[in-house]
């Protein structure tokens, strides 16, 4: 197991380096730091001195890969690539445009992101899996038909409308919870409940349909016929046999997103004013804060790779036939 994990982590390294190279190419080669400076400073205030100052403040005035002017190891380390991209592996993301340390900002914003994303994830999984099981139980009936119709209709609605509609109905018309905001402590539930509810509802359509397909595929297998033939009730068949055998395809899609929960949801957080990583990213995009976007890309892919490894590990728990060697 341990050897397997180490090997997987070593496999992950080239992928992370690839991600790093892609982002580096996007941010520094497609556009030179001069272009970024011109963009940030605006057309009016652009002078060669202003550009040089902007670059020097952010450490963009170095050569890209090889610094001929330096000596010793500084030939490679005193470059944009090393100081901006390679340092990310050590957890050093540099500073945002407003001068704050990005790494510290990220750790302090993870909490609110998780407070929304984790309940949404767990509740959403429970709701969609049970709904899909319900549809499977009543398969080929009117309930199933209209359930699928409902799912298709629900997945045809943009996520934006769920949020806008939910805020309008629940917060403005019914005045049940505040429209947006976030508070720590015991009052937090007031702010968390609406985003979580909307997050769960907006995911019902596509997930339910997906799980229903998986369950229907399992239910036509031979072992299900055997289970029915030996006299098991349909409910027992569904929960003891179909659900457990469907775990592998379900886990494939589900476990991978667990680490990404830290990143929060861009839309939900920006609409509800939650000070998490999602709204941090959106603000960075709108302010064209390249350092933050680069850091988020790196963390996002790191978490995704962790998710892939977790997925493999989770297989061993649900399927004893799978072993690492």
């Amino acid at each position, binding site marked *: 197991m341990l050897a397997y994990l180490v090997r997987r982590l070593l496999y992950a390294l*080239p*992928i992370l380096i*690839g*991600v790093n190279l*892609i*982002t580096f190419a*996007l*941010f520094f080669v*497609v*556009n030179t730091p001069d*272009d*970024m400076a*011109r*963009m940030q400073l605006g057309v009016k205030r652009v002078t060669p001195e202003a550009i040089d100052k902007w670059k020097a403040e952010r450490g963009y005035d170095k050569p890209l890969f090889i610094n001929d002017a330096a000596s010793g190891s500084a030939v490679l380390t005193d470059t944009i690539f090393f100081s901006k991209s390679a340092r990310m592996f050590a957890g050093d993301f540099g500073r945002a445009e407003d001068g704050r340390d990005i790494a510290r900002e990220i750790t302090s914003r993870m909490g609110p992101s998780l407070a929304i994303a984790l309940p949404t994830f767990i509740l959403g999984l429970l709701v969609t899996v049970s709904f899909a099981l319900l549809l499977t139980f009543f398969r080929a009936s009117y309930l199933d038909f209209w359930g699928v119709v409902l799912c*298709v*209709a629900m*997945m*045809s*609605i*943009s*996520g*934006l*409308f769920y949020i*806008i509609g939910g*805020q*309008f109905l629940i917060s*403005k018309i019914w005045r049940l919870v505040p*429209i947006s905001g976030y508070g720590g402590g015991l009052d937090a539930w007031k702010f968390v409940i609406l985003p979580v509810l909307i997050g769960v509802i907006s995911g019902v359509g596509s997930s339910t349909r997906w799980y229903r397909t998986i369950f229907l595929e399992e239910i036509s297998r031979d072992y299900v016929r055997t289970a029915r033939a030996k006299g098991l009730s349909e409910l027992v068949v569904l929960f003891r046999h179909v659900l457990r055998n469907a775990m592998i395809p379900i886990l494939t899609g589900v476990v991978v997103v667990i680490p*990404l929960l830290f*990143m929060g949801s*861009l*839309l939900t957080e*920006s609409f509800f004013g939650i000070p998490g990583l999602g709204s941090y*990213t*959106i603000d960075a*995009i*709108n302010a*064209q804060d*390249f350092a933050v*976007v*680069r850091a*988020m*890309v790196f963390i*996002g*892919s790191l978490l*995704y*790779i962790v998710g*892939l490894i977790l997925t493999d590990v989770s297989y061993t728990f649900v399927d004893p036939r799978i072993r690492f060697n």
Partner: protein
Amino acid sequence: MTFLPVILWSDVLIWLLFVAAIVFGALSLRNPLWRTAWQRVGRSRAGMASATVLLVFVGVGLLDSLHYRPRLENAAGPQTATAAPPPTATAAPPPTAYAVEVLSLLDVLLTPLRTRNEKTYSEPLATRAYAKESIESRDAAGELQQSRDYPRLRHGGAHLGADEARRDGDVGDRLLRAVSLAFLAWWAVAAATAAGVARAEACSAPAAWRRIWSNESDFAWNAVLAAVACLLLVALPLAMLAGQYHVFGTDKVGQDVFYQVLKSVRTALVIGLVTTLVTLPLAILLGILAGYFRGWVDDLIQYLYTTLSSIPGVLLIAAAVLMMQVLIDNHPQWFATAAERADLRLLALCFILGVTSWTGLCRLLRGETLKLRELEYIQAAQAFGVTDLRIIGRHIVPNLMHIVIIALVMDFSSLVLAEAVLSYVGIGVDPTMISFGTMINNARMELAREPAVWWSLSAAFVFMFTLVLAANLLADAVRDAFDPRMAGSA
């Protein structure tokens, strides 16, 4: 020339796709396997009803993809064609100049909607504005009086004159006429369809009529006719009312929302269709190469798509779009008009979406190719010394096409939805380009007003929902027809 044709890149691509779809459809009908698959799609009632609806959307999009610049009446006049003063006879004939405003054929058809702008918000079918304003008027004594009231709209219900109370009656009257017209039009279409079916199946027209409605014909004509009925019932009243009123109200700057919704259709179609032009070649080429040649080619391609797909989609798109913005902003000289810049930005967005979303299809195709290349007939071809290129072209690609078709129709709706989200995040289409995303983005704060401004959002919602739902239903029908795993159950 009274106009200067403008060929935008997205116009070329969308017409190219349209022609390619027709050619591909005609070619695939020759292949018996494909023909039966398409016939299965044709029998699906939900599929055909949604295809009818989609055709209308595509028609609007295609009309909106023929652009031109109208000639200015007077080169010295203002820069817009509509506001140009009539040419004076004494002036020497000025050199021909064209407006910087790029219009499309759809704009011409919708000229009244496009030009009749109000000052600001107004409700659907309203005759007065949404917000109160100071109005100056003269009373009986000729004194200047100031009062605060809802000002009369310049164009909404202008034909009623001072008699605003007649509005409800007028609207009802128009609705009644539109509905009866829709009824007549539908009967005409239905009768023509029955005649056509009667001719094709060599039976009498009443018999054909019965076959259509008892679901016995080989094509889901009843679903098509039902969809046509719904479309007529929606389109004709809208057309009847749009001439005199703002059917869906006006937005913050007084632009007609109905016009905006119709313009959004093209943006959604371009995003949904042109993106596949990037996705398909990448996914097909790399997927087949990886699966067929294996070895280091496979390793390299797998590494490439694992790396790309490990970056969360939105973030990669955000990074790429930010960089593209820098590029576009630093090179204003590349674009003659604002429309061209917006158009290039739209295409760049399609390109970025395509580059970030080919990985899933590529993985599928690689797996399928791995399976195919072990089959006997391909090994036989290899044993006969057929070249790799020929094997791929003759044996592998045709056997992968069903996956490609399914992926293509399934991706369309998710891309349309993605556009709205990306535009909200600020990394979508150009803010000057009308799209569902920019409409939602501009209107989302207005629900907080008292009374709420709901019409912009609702119109965008209804049109977007219809488009995506139709696409989803058609995608399901196509998947059911083409997926070999479904063949047994159908």
